[in-house]
C-alpha cells in the first residue's frame, strides 16, 4: 500500500521532531521535579512524555526506543500512582535514560550496555519500592495460558460449522455508543446468518426507557470462521452483555445423524425446557411450540427463535446435499426458448378458458378455470425463472476491464459492486454487456480524474466506480456511479452547439443538457483516446437500452460524480399489462408505466378549451387521445378514461374508451411489414382470439411531440 507508506514516512519525520521537543521538555520537567519532588502535575508531565515517546515510537518502527522507554514509563507510572517516591537515584537514572533516548533518536551508535545498565537499575528500584508487584506477575500468567488455549482452538480446519450465538446485552449497552446492528452486519460477513430478536423483555410503553436496551438476540450462524473470530465481533461489549456461543451443527455430524433436530430437542439443548417438562406436555397432540408457549414454560419469542434455527439447519444441510449432488444441468437455450413459447401459448389459452367459464357462469367450470389459472401463472413464473441468470458474471468481467483501463490511463480506480445476485433474463444480460462497457469506459475516461487532480480537489486518490443492480417493481435497475468530476454542462452545451445538435438560443434544463450526451455524434472528450471519445458511445447505449424496452437516466453533480441508471424489464417475453378498449379495438399499456386511471368527461374537455390537458388533483397532466392517434372514427362515449402513465419522468395521459383491467400479456412481435410503426411495440392475443396492440408509451409520446401536436403546454 503505497499511500500507507507515504503517511508512515511523514509520520516518522514528525515523530522525530516531536520526540526531540518532548525530550527537551522532559529535561526541564525533571530538573524542576528535583526541586519539588511531590508536584503531581510535573510527575504527570514526565509520565506523559515517556508515554507518548513509547507509543508513537512503536507506531513508526522505533522499536528500540519504545522498548527502552517502556521501562522508564513503568517507573513513573508507579510514582504517579503513589507506589514509588521521587528520589535522587530515580532522577539520575531518568536523566541518563533521556540522553540515551536522544542518542537512539539521532541514530548515532548507542551503547547497549548503558541501556541495559539503566534498565537494570530502574528495575531494581521498582522491586525495592513495591510489594504489590507480585500481582502483576500473577496477572500475566492466565493471559499466557489463554493465548495457548486459543491456538489450540483455532486448529479446526476449513469445514463450516453452525453456531448458536445468544447475545443478551445489558440495559446500558447504548450508553457506550455500541450498535448491535453493526455487530450483526459483521456476523453476516462471516457466513450465512439468521438473527432473531427476543422482544419479550420490552416493558410497556409507559415504563419504557428508550435509552436502555431491552432486546436480546439469538443468532444462528453457519461459517468457516472459528469461535474466537465470532467472539471478536463482540469484543468491545463483552463486559456489558451475556454472550454464549455454542456449536450446534458441524459437517462431520452429518454422517452420524441424517435427520433434523426436532423443535423440542433444540429447546431442550438450549436449556429453555427440561426433559420432564417436555414429556409432560407432549402427551397432547398439538404442536410442541404452541403447547410450550401456552403452558408458559417458554416465551413465543424463544419458540420462534428455535423454529428459525431449525429452518436454518435444514437449509444448511440441504445446501450441502445439493453441493454434493450435481449442481446444475446444461440445456441448449433453444430448448428453453421453445418452452417459453409454449408457456406463452398456454397463458393465452388459459385466459380464454377463464373468459369462457365466466360467460357460462358454471360453478364447477370456474373452479377448474381458477385452478388452471393458478398453475399456469406459477408455471409461467418458474419458466421465466429458468431463463434468469444472476448479473454477477457480467459484473466480474467489468472488474478486469476497469483494472486494465485504469492502468492504461494512469488512473487509480477501484470498482465496487452490489447486488450481483440480481437475476435478469439471459437475453437481457447478453444485450446489456455492450452498453455497460460503454458507460463504464466513459466513467473511467471522462468521469474520474487523474490522481493528482483528485488530490487537489480534496478527494481520495483512488476513484471509485460503483456498480449496483437491484429490483424495482417489475424492473431491474442497474446503476453505474462514479465519484469523478461530474458532467460539465458548459462543455456539453458548447459541444452540442458546435456539432449543430442545438442552436445557441435553445434554453435547456440541466436534465436536458445531460441527455444531450446521448445524441448521435456527440463527444466532449478533449482528446480522442483509444478508450472512448469517438462519439459512438452513448447514443448506442441509449438505443440498445430502448430496444430492451428500458430507459436510461443520468444524474450528475459537478465535482462530485455522475450516476447513470439503466432501468430494464425483468423479462422480454411476458409483461403485466393494462387492457383497454377503444371502440371495438383492444390495446395493452404496460402496467409498469401506469400510475392511475381517471375519468375524462365532455365537460372537462370543454373546460380546457381544446388543449389536451387534464387536471389531476391540482396537477396539470397533458394527454394523448389514442383514438386520434390510431385514427378511429367511431362516436366518442360520454365519459372516457385517461390512463395516466409516467414516461421519462413526466406524467402523460392516454385517453381510451374503457379500461378493462390487468392482463397477462404474452408479447408477439409484429411482422416485418409493421416493424416501422411508431408507438406500438408488439401485439398479443386475447382469450377470445382477438389481437390487441401493445402501446409503446415512450415512443408514442415522442412521436406525438415530433408531429407537433405538442401535448406539453
Amino acid at each position: 500500500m503505497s499511500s500507507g507508506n507515504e503517511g508512515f514516512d511523514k509520520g516518522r519525520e514528525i515523530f522525530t521532531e516531536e520526540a526531540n521537543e518532548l525530550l527537551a521538555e522532559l529535561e526541564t520537567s525533571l530538573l524542576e521535579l528535583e526541586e519539588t519532588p511531590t508536584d503531581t502535575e510535573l510527575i504527570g508531565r514526565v509520565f506523559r512524555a515517556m508515554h507518548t515517546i513509547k507509543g508513537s515510537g512503536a507506531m513508526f518502527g522505533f522499536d528500540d526506543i519504545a522498548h527502552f522507554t517502556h521501562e522508564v514509563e513503568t517507573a513513573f507510572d508507579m510514582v504517579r500512582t503513589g507506589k514509588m517516591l521521587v528520589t535522587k537515584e530515580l532522577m539520575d537514572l531518568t536523566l541518563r535514560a533521556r540522553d540515551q533516548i536522544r542518542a537512539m533518536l539521532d541514530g548515532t551508535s548507542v551503547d547497549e550496555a548503558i541501556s541495559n545498565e539503566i534498565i537494570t537499575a530502574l528495575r531494581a528500584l521498582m522491586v525495592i519500592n513495591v510489594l504489590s508487584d507480585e500481582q502483576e506477575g500473577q496477572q500475566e500468567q492466565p493471559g499466557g495460558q489463554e493465548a495457548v488455549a486459543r491456538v489450540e482452538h483455532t486448529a479446526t480446519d476449513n469445514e463450516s460449522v453452525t453456531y448458536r450465538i445468544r447475545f443478551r446485552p445489558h440495559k446500558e449497552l447504548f450508553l457506550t455508543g455500541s450498535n448491535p446492528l453493526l455487530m450483526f452486519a459483521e456476523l453476516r460477513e462471516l457466513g450465512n446468518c439468521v438473527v432473531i430478536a427476543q422482544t419479550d423483555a420490552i416493558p410497556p410503553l409507559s415504563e419504557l426507557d428508550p435509552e436502555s436496551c431491552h432486546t436480546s438476540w439469538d443468532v444462528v450462524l453457519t461459517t468457516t470462521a472459528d469461535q474466537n473470530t465470532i467472539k471478536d465481533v463482540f469484543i468491545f461489549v463483552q463486559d456489558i452483555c451475556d454472550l454464549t456461543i455454542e456449536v450446534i451443527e458441524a459437517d462431520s455430524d452429518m454422517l452420524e445423524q441424517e435427520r433434523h433436530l426436532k423443535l423440542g430437542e433444540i429447546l431442550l439443548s438450549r436449556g429453555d425446557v427440561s426433559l420432564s417438562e417436555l414429556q409432560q406436555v407432549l402427551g397432547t397432540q398439538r404442536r410442541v411450540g404452541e403447547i410450550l408457549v401456552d403452558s408458559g414454560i417458554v416465551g413465543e419469542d424463544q419458540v420462534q427463535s428455535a423454529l428459525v434455527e431449525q429452518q436454518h439447519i435444514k437449509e444448511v444441510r440441504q445446501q450441502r446435499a445439493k453441493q454434493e449432488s450435481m449442481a446444475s444441468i446444461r440445456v441448449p437455450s433453444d430448448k428453453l426458448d421453445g418452452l417459453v413459447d409454449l408457456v406463452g401459448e398456454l397463458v393465452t389459452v388459459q385466459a380464454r378458458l377463464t373468459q369462457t367459464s365466466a360467460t357460462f357462469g358454471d360453478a364447477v367450470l370456474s373452479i377448474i378455470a381458477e385452478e388452471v389459472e393458478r398453475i399456469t401463472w406459477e408455471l409461467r413464473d418458474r419458466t421465466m425463472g429458468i431463463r434468469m441468470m444472476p448479473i454477477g458474471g457480467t459484473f466480474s468481467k467489468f472488474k478486469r476491464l476497469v483494472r486494465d483501463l485504469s492502468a492504461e490511463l494512469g488512473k487509480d480506480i477501484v470498482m465496487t459492486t452490489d447486488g450481483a445476485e440480481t437475476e435478469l433474463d439471459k437475453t437481457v444480460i447478453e444485450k446489456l454487456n455492450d452498453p455497460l462497457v460503454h458507460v463504464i469506459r466513459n466513467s473511467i475516461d471522462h468521469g474520474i480524474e487523474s490522481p493528482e487532480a483528485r488530490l487537489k480537489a480534496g478527494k481520495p486518490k483512488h476513484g471509485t466506480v460503483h456498480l449496483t443492480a437491484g429490483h424495482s417493481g417489475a424492473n431491474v435497475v442497474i446503476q453505474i456511479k462514479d465519484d469523478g468530476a461530474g458532467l460539465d454542462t458548459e462543455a456539453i452545451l458548447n459541444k452540442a452547439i458546435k456539432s449543430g445538435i442545438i442552436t445557441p438560443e435553445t434554453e435547456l434544463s440541466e436534465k436536458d443538457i445531460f441527455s444531450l450526451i446521448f445524441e448521435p455524434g456527440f463527444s466532449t472528450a478533449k482528446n480522442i483516446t483509444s478508450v472512448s471519445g469517438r462519439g459512438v458511445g452513448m447514443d448506442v447505449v441509449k438505443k440498445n437500452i430502448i430496444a430492451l424496452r428500458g430507459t436510461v437516466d443520468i444524474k450528475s453533480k459537478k465535482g462530485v460524480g455522475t450516476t447513470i441508471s439503466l432501468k430494464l424489464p425483468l423479462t422480454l417475453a411476458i409483461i403485466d399489462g393494462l387492457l383497454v378498449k377503444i371502440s371495438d379495438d383492444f390495446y395493452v399499456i404496460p402496467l409498469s408505466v401506469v400510475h392511475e386511471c381517471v375519468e375524462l368527461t365532455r365537460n372537462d374537455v370543454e373546460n380546457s378549451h381544446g388543449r389536451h390537458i387534464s387536471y389531476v388533483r391540482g396537477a396539470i397532466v397533458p394527454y394523448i387521445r389514442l383514438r386520434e392517434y390510431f385514427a378511429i372514427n367511431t362516436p366518442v362515449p360520454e365519459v372516457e378514461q385517461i390512463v395516466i402513465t409516467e414516461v421519462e419522468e413526466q406524467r402523460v395521459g392516454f385517453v381510451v374508451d374503457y379500461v378493462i383491467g390487468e392482463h397477462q400479456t404474452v408479447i408477439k412481435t409484429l411482422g416485418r411489414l409493421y416493424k416501422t410503426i411508431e408507438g406500438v411495440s408488439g401485439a398479443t392475443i386475447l382469450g377470445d382470439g382477438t389481437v390487441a396492440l401493445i402501446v409503446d408509451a415512450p415512443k408514442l409520446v415522442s412521436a406525438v411531440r415530433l408531429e407537433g401536436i405538442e401535448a406539453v403546454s
Partner: protein
Amino acid sequence: MGKTIMTVDDSASIRQMVSFTLKGAGYTVVEAVDGKDALAKLDKTQVHMVITDLNMPNLDGIGLIRAVRAKPAFKFIPIVMLTTESQDTRKQEGKSAGATGWIVKPFKPEQLLAVIKKVLG
C-alpha cells in the same frame, strides 16, 4: 461515506498517522490536541465518532469521554480510545466512562480502519 471523525491526541505523529489513514479512507477528520481542545471543537462541528488517546494534558481521555457522554448530542456516538497493553486499569476506567471500544498501540492503519468499521459501520 462523508462521515467526520475527531482524533484527539497530544502526539502530533499519532494525529498525523490517524488523520492520514482516515482521509485516505474517505472520512473527514477534525484534529484536537487534548480533551479541552476536543470539547471546544465538538461544539462547533458535526462529529460522528471520536478517537482519543488516554494520557493528555489539560483534560485526559477518560475525562473527555465522560464529558462527551454528558452532552445529549453525543450520548450515543462511538468513542474509541487508544491504549497501550500496560494500561489495563485505564482501559477499564475508559469503558466505564462510556468508551465504545479501544485500539492497542502500536497499531497498523488497517487495524484502525477495521475498528472504525466495527463501531461506525
